[in-house]
């Protein structure tokens, strides 16, 4: 970019031209924008007769088949399979969010009230999982809850050998909680760290007991962190693939698994795309909801980047 050009556009010193961002915008239009567009378009097309891909023929049948099954004899009926998948995805993500929040609030507060050296070490300890591949972490938790793993062995010893955790919805949930726990701890911690303990002291001084202080002073103060944590856990959990695949026994019980299936063995791209569009819509709806809640309860805008 020419110096002259930069000069013309300058506002304050050091302010660079907005045009600098143009290459990024163009690249992202190709790398993100167009794929989303293609997804939307494909969701309205027919599946290819053979192999992968689509047939260029407008047909909203993919959306119809989210609810309606066409039997071989030509009759149609209500199909609850995909609704169930959606419901499961919501349910699992919701439970994951609640469980992670319940455990993250104590640990975040606890870390925030340690002295500085200890705090840094503990912070590193909850940050490390961030840097570890989700695949490996999911594998790790799988080894723990495997029938031959420690949990399975203990259950066997206790005479519960006929109970299995692995390849059940419970396993998926354990995996989701395990993987997304740090996503909840860290934002709550950053709120908790900023919590001014003099506020709690004032409450004690006015006669409040511990639980009251926690409920009426601490929790409202760390609410922005909790809201951020909810967004950071619920959104990726809703689109999660590995946990239900590796722990839930490959049964297609969350949206992402069904999408993968339709781009894989099932070879129904339009249907996979329709599910993708649905997932995008649900995610954006949730984002709006969280932003609304955030604005309402903290008066601040929730920003995702």
């Amino acid at each position, binding site marked *: 970019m020419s*110096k002259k050009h930069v000069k013309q556009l*300058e506002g*304050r*010193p*050091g*302010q*660079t*031209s*907005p045009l600098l*961002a143009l290459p*990024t*915008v163009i*690249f*992202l*239009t190709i*790398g*993100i924008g167009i794929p*989303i567009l293609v997804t939307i378009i*494909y969701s309205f097309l027919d599946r290819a007769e053979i192999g*992968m*891909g*689509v047939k260029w023929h407008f047909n909203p049948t993919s959306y119809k088949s989210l609810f309606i099954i066409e039997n071989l004899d030509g009759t149609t009926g209500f199909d609850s399979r995909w609704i169930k998948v959606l419901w499961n995805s919501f349910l699992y993500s919701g439970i994951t969010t609640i469980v992670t929040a319940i455990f993250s609030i*104590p*640990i975040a507060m*606890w*870390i925030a009230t340690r002295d500085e050296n200890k705090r840094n070490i*503990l912070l*590193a*300890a*909850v940050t*490390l*999982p961030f*840097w*570890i*591949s989700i*695949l*490996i*972490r999911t*594998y*790790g938790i*799988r*080894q723990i809850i495997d029938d031959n793993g*420690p949990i399975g062995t203990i259950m066997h010893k206790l005479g519960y050998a006929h109970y299995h955790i692995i390849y059940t919805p419970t396993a998926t949930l354990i995996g989701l909680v*395990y993987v997304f*726990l740090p996503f909840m*701890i860290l934002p709550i911690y950053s709120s908790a760290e900023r919590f001014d303990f003099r506020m709690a002291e004032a409450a004690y001084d006015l006669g409040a007991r*511990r639980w009251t202080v926690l409920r009426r002073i601490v929790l409202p103060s760390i609410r922005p962190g909790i809201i951020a944590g909810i967004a950071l856990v619920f959104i990726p959990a*809703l*689109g999660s693939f*590995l946990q239900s695949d*590796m722990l839930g026994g490959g049964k297609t019980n969350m949206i*992402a698994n069904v*999408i993968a299936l339709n781009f894989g063995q099932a070879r129904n791209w339009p249907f996979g795309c329709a599910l*993708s569009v649905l*997932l*995008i819509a649900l*995610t*954006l709806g949730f984002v709006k909801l969280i932003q609304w809640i955030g604005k309402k309860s903290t008066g601040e805008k929730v920003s*995702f*980047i």
Partner: protein
Amino acid sequence: MTTSHTAPKRRRLVNLRNFPSFTAVSWGVLFFLYIPLAYVLFYSFNSSRIATIWQSFSLHWYSVTFHDPDIQRALSNSIKIAIGATIFSTFFAVIAALGLLRMKRAGSAFAWALIGAPLLIAEIVLAVGTLAFFRAVNIPLGLVAMTIAHTAFCIPFALIPIRARLGQLDNAPFEAAADLGANEVQILRRITLPLLAPAIISGALLAFAISIDDFITSFFLSGPGSTTLPVFIFGMIRSTVTPEVDAISSLLLLFSGVVLISSYVLNRRRR
């Protein structure tokens, strides 16, 4: 009236900063977070062929890992993609930051939506969308395709620290530089970029970690012969699980630890 100097016999007055049971819950959470990792690490030294059954201590599976040509190929693919994605995404993030951050104009909403999309939209959606798009325009699956896709979703991660840093800076150093006669290009080179340097490095590290750990996008976009390490490991887990999986996982754990510590040291030094 008492005048004793000794500590009074008092009710147990606990630290007001602690909430009951928080300590126990916290240790429980830490235990839960680390026990699976410790377990994997431990079983990587298993001599048995079956990952979940302990036989005896051995470095056998590390040796297998180091001599496995498939793993080497997958690792080399992963690194190539990660390096490419890191360089490109950091570059795009820096110019986007410079262009957008001190501007509040209508056009920037669209740009922000694009940048933020990978953080909101499920990875699988972007992965299959990209797959569909690439097939439609005949971009072959493989390293190039994966590098493009990784670059796209790494941009927001590379941008996060840069944005945070820019938010902390006020106008003073820029105004001072202008006052001392620096033109815009000189300000950029001598003030802005050096001030952002630590954040750019953090962003690059983050992008690298995200890229090298990525599974889903690579799973859909890897063509024949261009498997990445996570995709390869996923395949191993799916078929027969030998302690080789634990051995590779442990090596990757070690790597993550090193990256975390180095970014920590970097942050420390900056302060």
